[in-house]
């Protein structure tokens, strides 16, 4: 596996102060780097222990993103992440996995094969150098990086204390689009969806999906491109 090292500034141009706060020093990349030069990119995230309905929704969403020529970004964890990557590949789309481990490790181990496939034909991204010992804190760090690298985040399903919630708040903090599937937004057991909606998260329903996806702008892929001739 050929690994390329880039800084967030290489990929996104000048970062704002808000972006710099949680941005990693460097990113290790393997696969099709051209995926970084087109867009839009949308994160599909959710719990590891997910309901069957949640898996079905993750797959449906990933397929809809592919139909809109959107790159499906996720974290290659168990549950929602794996379903989203697999559905994007099955639908003939492109996908980027932002790992909570270094590129030379897989978590869960069951995803070793999928990770290798994504590293060959799509793109793997990690902020952790080879040999780095993965810690519990690595996963929320990965989620903040995923928010930084994508134009929008969609939360499919997540409990009250799920790590996915970190990514939702980071997307809002960065001023990126955040969508909550209607099923999670209306879950009376959860308090964070109401809070996030107050700060600008949008509810994505079956009816609003197509319009919302059509309007997701390609920004992250073009940042760093010269603008002087236009502005």
């Amino acid at each position, binding site marked *: 596996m050929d690994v390329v090292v880039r800084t967030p500034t290489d990929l996104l141009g000048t970062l704002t102060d808000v972006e710099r706060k949680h941005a990693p020093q460097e990113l290790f990349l393997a696969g099709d780097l051209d995926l970084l030069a087109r867009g839009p990119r949308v994160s599909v995230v959710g719990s590891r222990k997910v309901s069957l309905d949640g898996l079905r929704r993750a797959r449906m969403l990933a397929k809809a993103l592919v139909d809109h020529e959107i790159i499906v970004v996720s974290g290659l964890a168990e549950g929602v992440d794996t379903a989203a990557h697999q559905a994007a590949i099955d639908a003939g789309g492109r996908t980027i996995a932002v790992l909570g481990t270094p590129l030379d490790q897989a978590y869960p181990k069951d995803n070793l094969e999928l990770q290798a496939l994504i590293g060959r034909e799509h793109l793997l991204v990690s902020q952790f150098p080879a040999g780095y010992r993965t810690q519990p804190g690595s996963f929320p760090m990965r989620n903040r990086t995923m928010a930084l690298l994508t134009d929008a985040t969609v939360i499919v399903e997540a409990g009250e204390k799920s790590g996915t919630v970190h990514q939702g708040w980071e997307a809002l903090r960065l001023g990126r689009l955040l969508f909550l599937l209607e099923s999670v937004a209306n879950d009376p057991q959860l308090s964070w969806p109401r809070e996030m909606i107050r*700060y*600008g998260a949008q509810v994505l329903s079956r009816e609003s999906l197509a*319009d919302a996806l059509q309007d997701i702008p390609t920004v992250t892929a073009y940042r760093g491109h010269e603008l002087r001739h236009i502005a």
Partner: protein
Amino acid sequence: MIERLDFASCYAYSPRGATEASLQSRQLCYRIKAGDAEAIRLAAERVRTFHESGALPGFFGANVTLVAVPGRAPLAPGASSRTHSICDALLRCGLAREVVALLERVEPVLKSAYAAPVERPSAEEHYATIAVAPTLLTPARVLLVDDVVTRGATLLGAASRIQEAFPECELRGFALVRTESFDEVTAVRDPRVGIIEVARTGKTVRRP
């Protein structure tokens, strides 16, 4: 509520157009909307050029207070206002006296760009969800600054709040980008001065 506001904008943006200029207009507009530091810096420098050439008469100057128009939802913890960063960039270009954070969104409204025309928030809804921060200042000339103007309802709602708090102040609106919803864009750089007003139907209309 005020019913008429002088406003200026510097770039045209076509949401759906297919010409090269329309495509470029989207690239620039999206990056400004996303708070991209480089796009905002270049745009502010371009505003200075337009100001110096006389294309934006009465909008900028040494006695102007810049006020950022709030986004559609309250700022999330740790977030920063992108319109405020546009104000800062304009100030760094010597286009105003000061930037003052006078307006704050206290409740979210539905995002204009994702709402069907009938569902888009009215100037009244913007007015109802924006508050003026307490201040001892009495600015003489306020320029409200937004990133992108569509119909102008946000600017009109925000302007109404400013006028209520400072009835004597001279008030204008500015957006870096104006949306040309049904047209191709022939030139992205296109400084224009016009008005936003409430039509007889009660809807906000923008010219140009």
